[in-house]
């Protein structure tokens, strides 16, 4: 990883020095173990703050919409796919963006770490040879990295950036095709069971909207949940149905636009399973329209293309 860090720092420094960009958005060392944090660099000498690690889980595409200045961004696979969708939706000007692509080996899920440590606090972590050494007060445990990666990363089909101007390091191997078993397991449930599951999960929702704010594709000037005239859904959390309604509309609104980056799921402080819903949409859009969000700049989004409702099978890769 340190090689990638060095390469990112050098690239960022050069871009700033040569005035090719005014700002580089990347990651810096975080304040908690296994955590990196978004970082904004404007001076060449500050480029050394940039790092690459297993805690670079945020989707930096979120910071690129409607930027006046010329920006470079450090982008892993999912970030790059969001960038592609945002360009298509006229939220990012391709000519004012330099994508520093980074092949991604997956990011560590701190919730999995918390679960594994069952109450013990993580104070330090070290990663080498595919093993994560978790250390705290009076304990040290070694766990295979694979066991700690986000579920999103385990099924990710595009760890290598799909769009980039400069590529850091060698591409990483792509995993077997995503089988969507998680979604399939959900689909076979009876409607009442599905409902019960969603209600159970969303009964914990505190309506903090971290899921919405963390998603690069959620950028409406006024979100329907904030709207008070008319009031589409109640502002109070007295009724769990409204929490379900909020997530249902969010997921539907992201159908064909969601790149399955998992940023919403990661942001949720209550550990609510948002992924089942968003992935259900990803799977449906793939099956119905043959469209995978964010993989190509030329492919038209399904709702922007003429739709043939009689035989979905005739959709080709161009979405026609």
């Amino acid at each position, binding site marked *: 990883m340190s090689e990638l860090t060095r390469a990112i720092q050098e690239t960022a420094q050069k871009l700033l020095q040569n005035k090719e960009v005014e700002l580089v958005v990347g990651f810096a060392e975080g304040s908690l173990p296994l955590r990196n944090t978004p*970082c*904004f660099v404007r001076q060449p000498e500050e480029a050394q703050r940039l790092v690459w690690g297993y805690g670079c889980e945020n989707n930096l595409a979120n910071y690129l919409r409607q930027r006046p200045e010329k920006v470079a961004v450090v982008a892993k696979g999912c970030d790059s796919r969001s960038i592609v969708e945002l360009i298509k939706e006229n939220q990012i000007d391709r000519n004012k963006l330099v994508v520093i692509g980074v092949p991604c080996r997956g990011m560590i899920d701190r919730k999995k770490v918390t679960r594994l440590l069952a109450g013990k*606090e993580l104070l330090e972590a070290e990663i080498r040879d595919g093993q994560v050494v978790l250390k705290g007060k009076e304990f040290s445990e070694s766990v295979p990295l694979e066991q700690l990666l986000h579920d999103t990363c385990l099924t990710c089909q595009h760890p290598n950036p799909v769009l980039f101007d400069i590529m850091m390091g060698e591409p990483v191997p792509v995993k077997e095709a995503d089988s969507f078993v998680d979604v399939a397991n959900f689909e076979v449930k009876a409607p009442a069971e599905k409902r019960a599951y969603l209600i159970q999960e969303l009964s914990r929702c505190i309506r*903090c909207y971290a899921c919405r*704010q963390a998603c690069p594709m959620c950028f409406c000037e006024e979100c329907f949940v*904030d709207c008070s005239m008319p009031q589409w859904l109640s502002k109070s959390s007295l009724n769990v149905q409204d929490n379900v309604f909020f997530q249902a509309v969010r997921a539907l609104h992201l159908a064909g636009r969601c790149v399955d980056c998992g940023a919403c799921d990661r*942001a949720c*402080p209550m550990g609510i399973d948002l992924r089942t819903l968003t992935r259900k949409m990803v799977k449906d859009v793939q099956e119905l329209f043959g469209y995978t969000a964010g993989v190509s700049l030329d492919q038209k989004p399904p709702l922007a293309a003429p739709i043939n409702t009689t035989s979905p099978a005739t959709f080709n890769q161009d979405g026609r």
Partner: protein
Amino acid sequence: MLLNKGQLTDWLNQLMQAYQVFAPIKEGDYFCFKQINSGDQATLNYTNSKVPPKEVLFPRSEKLFCYRCENDGVQLTEQIDESKKIIVGLRPCDAKSFLLLDGVFKSDKYHDPYYLTRRNNTVLVGLGCNQPASTCFCTSLGGGPFATEGLDLLLVDIGDRYVVEVLTDRGRELLAGMELPAADQEAKETARRVKEGAALSTQVNLEGLKSKLDVIFYDPIWDLIHEKCLGCAACTYTCPTCHCFDIVDEAEGNEGCRIRNWDACMFPLFTLHGSGHNPRPTGKERFRQRVMHKFKYFVDNFNAIACVGCGRCIINCPVNLDIREVLAEIQGSEVRSDKQ
């Protein structure tokens, strides 16, 4: 006094006959304060709860009153919760947060009957922190892992027993009928060692912070500090001292209720005026408000910082925007004059 851990369940069950009992229970990977209906649901083996027990006294959403329009006028029913409650196992920092909230809901001008009725009817049984988290910084704010301020009883975990420190008469009443033995010399010694061992790893320097904040409203530092903030309410909704709210009517046909909901300064809607003007148009002004409210305006109004150092905002922020680092950055910043 001494309470055997084995007696805890019975004690809670006994309390439940006269009180609604709220205690930390495990929900998924986290702990939350919920009303329990059997003593064995409580788990006092936790570091800190996900959402603070603030919601017991100041619920996320609460009906203030309900109304029904009738031919000859409007029928109103006030909804004041007068039930007697106990919160068991709350951390000293959370107990302190109630003292701060008291200032907000009880002033010369206004007494909030909803909060204050609950507050007066709620007894607080604290639990000292044998193992503070690395994100805890209560000692920097005048608290501590075994601070007793605001509590009626404090439990100190000494292994298989709790040393119970009685702090108020209300606390003493809770133990009536229990016939607990007084703490012996050995238990007192163990409690002392436990307290000494609970060292905090984080300190935050607050010296001179207020006088800096007094003059940096227009400082360019805010342009940079907020940049990675997403503008969600993960920090404010999990903060024990945040108390902003919004009031809405939810009605159907000719009846409805007036409901008070938590609100957050981080939302764009928070200060949006009816005219369409928003004095806090971007994340910069909103983030500044969060810091200023806690560390300056609250001090101006109530002579206390509106942070108890529980560290929840640090743990829950999706982008690791750490309030400790923000304060350090402000502390290190040059002080400029407060001019635009």
